[in-house]
């Protein structure tokens, strides 16, 4: 069996992200959908519905009367908040474990993923992009490939680290060189097998901009930039550290100055509390 065949076998053993995430994304980023359409999709998944209602009725939201259906939850909290909760809850199981190969303790990857998703959405709003929820979810699950690749990274750690330390490879380039596939490519394979939209598969595949021409896609550019910022903030970063390349074209493409980047980071600093709250809620 080749490494790739072995990896595909391992993907089949992963706990998949529930189908509800795909269904919600299909309606929520469609401008013709109504709030009712979205609520309808959510309420057909009893586990997620129960979970969402429990969260909505937690002390955090301080609702006077408990929400007893998704429709009332949507009315009380707003559609954005409910959708965000559904998407976050869909990702929790798959992303909350530790990862020895990347030096991540339990919860680190989840913290990093939620932070990236929050920054990506912040950027999507700033640049007035459509498909904000697709961007949020892509940023949330973009490192799913690490979960499968981590045992291989662990086994080849010294070879990978040698390329990074002494041969000027980025960590992703070293993964590709040593294992034959990097975590972004593998993540895209997983997303495809889980039937995520081609758009999401593409964002995950290119979230480190290994193919620089992809920078023209603003959704990819935004998820990429969010990842760079998150890496710098260090929250949930593993032994790969900041060993990824920054492509300066992204700031030109998005029309940003160095000061804009600082402002985006400061904005995220203000939102840190929101990230912590989301982490506690989900």
């Amino acid at each position, binding site marked *: 069996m080749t490494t790739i065949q072995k990896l595909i076998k391992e993907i089949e053993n992963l706990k998949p992200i529930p189908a509800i995430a795909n269904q919600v994304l299909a309606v929520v980023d469609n401008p013709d959908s109504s709030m009712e359409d979205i609520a309808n999709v959510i309420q057909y998944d009893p586990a997620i519905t129960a979970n969402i209602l429990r969260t909505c009725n937690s002390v955090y939201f301080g609702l006077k009367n408990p929400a007893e259906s998704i429709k009332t939850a949507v009315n009380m909290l707003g559609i954005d908040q409910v959708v965000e909760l559904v998407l976050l809850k869909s990702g929790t199981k798959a992303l909350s474990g530790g990862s020895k190969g990347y030096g991540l303790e339990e919860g680190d990857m989840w913290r990093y993923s939620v932070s990236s998703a929050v920054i990506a959405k912040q950027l999507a709003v700033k640049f007035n992009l459509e498909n904000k929820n697709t961007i949020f979810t892509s940023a949330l699950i973009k490192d799913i490939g690490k979960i499968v690749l981590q045992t291989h990274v662990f086994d080849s750690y010294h070879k990978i680290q040698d390329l990074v330390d002494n041969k000027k490879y980025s960590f992703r380039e070293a993964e590709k060189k040593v294992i034959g596939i990097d975590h972004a490519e593998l993540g895209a394979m997983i997303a495809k097998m889980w039937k995520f939209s081609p758009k999401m598969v593409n964002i995950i595949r290119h979230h480190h901009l290994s193919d620089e021409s992809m920078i023209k896609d603003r959704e990819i550019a935004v998820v990429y930039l969010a990842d760079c910022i998150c*890496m*710098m903030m*260090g929250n949930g*970063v593993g032994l790969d*550290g900041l060993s990824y390349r*920054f492509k*300066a074209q992204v700031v030109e493409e998005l029309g940003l100055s160095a000061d804009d980047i600082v*402002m985006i980071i400061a*904005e995220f600093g203000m939102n840190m509390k929101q990230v912590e709250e989301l982490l506690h809620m989900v």
Partner: protein
Amino acid sequence: MAFLNLSLRNNNGLGSCVKQIVGVADMKVSNNIKESIITYSLGSCIGLVIYDPVVKVGGILHYMLPESSIDKDKAAARPYMFADSGIPRLFKTAYKLGAVKQRMIIYAAGGAEILDQKGFFNIGKRNYMALKKMFFKNNVMINKQDVGGNKNRTVRIEIASGDIYVKTSGAKEVKI
């Protein structure tokens, strides 16, 4: 390594050692010898550790950005986010607990950088320069530092001993 194991055993032996966690854009100062202060996952942020061994007062500031002039409102709401608004507060809080500037032991960690950042993303370096500039003006010396590179770091100080430990992801904690 034997030394490291020994020091870890000692920590466990303390039993009642309470960990005060410093979040991002946050600060903690303590004179409680049963406490240690820790800040996790410094990327391009800087973890500034100060300690006065005479009165056993120590603190950590975890700041994200060099200058508060970028946004005065944010600096007012979150002063520990910036070097220039956070560092004076760290020192002043320690002075209130009896620490004296001349006795202060100072350690800085973090300021890491992403590869090929070409000036747009050199926040790590700018964070470190902001610290150096402020210390130069105020005649303060850094005793030790672990700054730059591409690793993220976790820093911890024990108030009783003033011992400082640093850990990079995937590696063991080491005493500096």
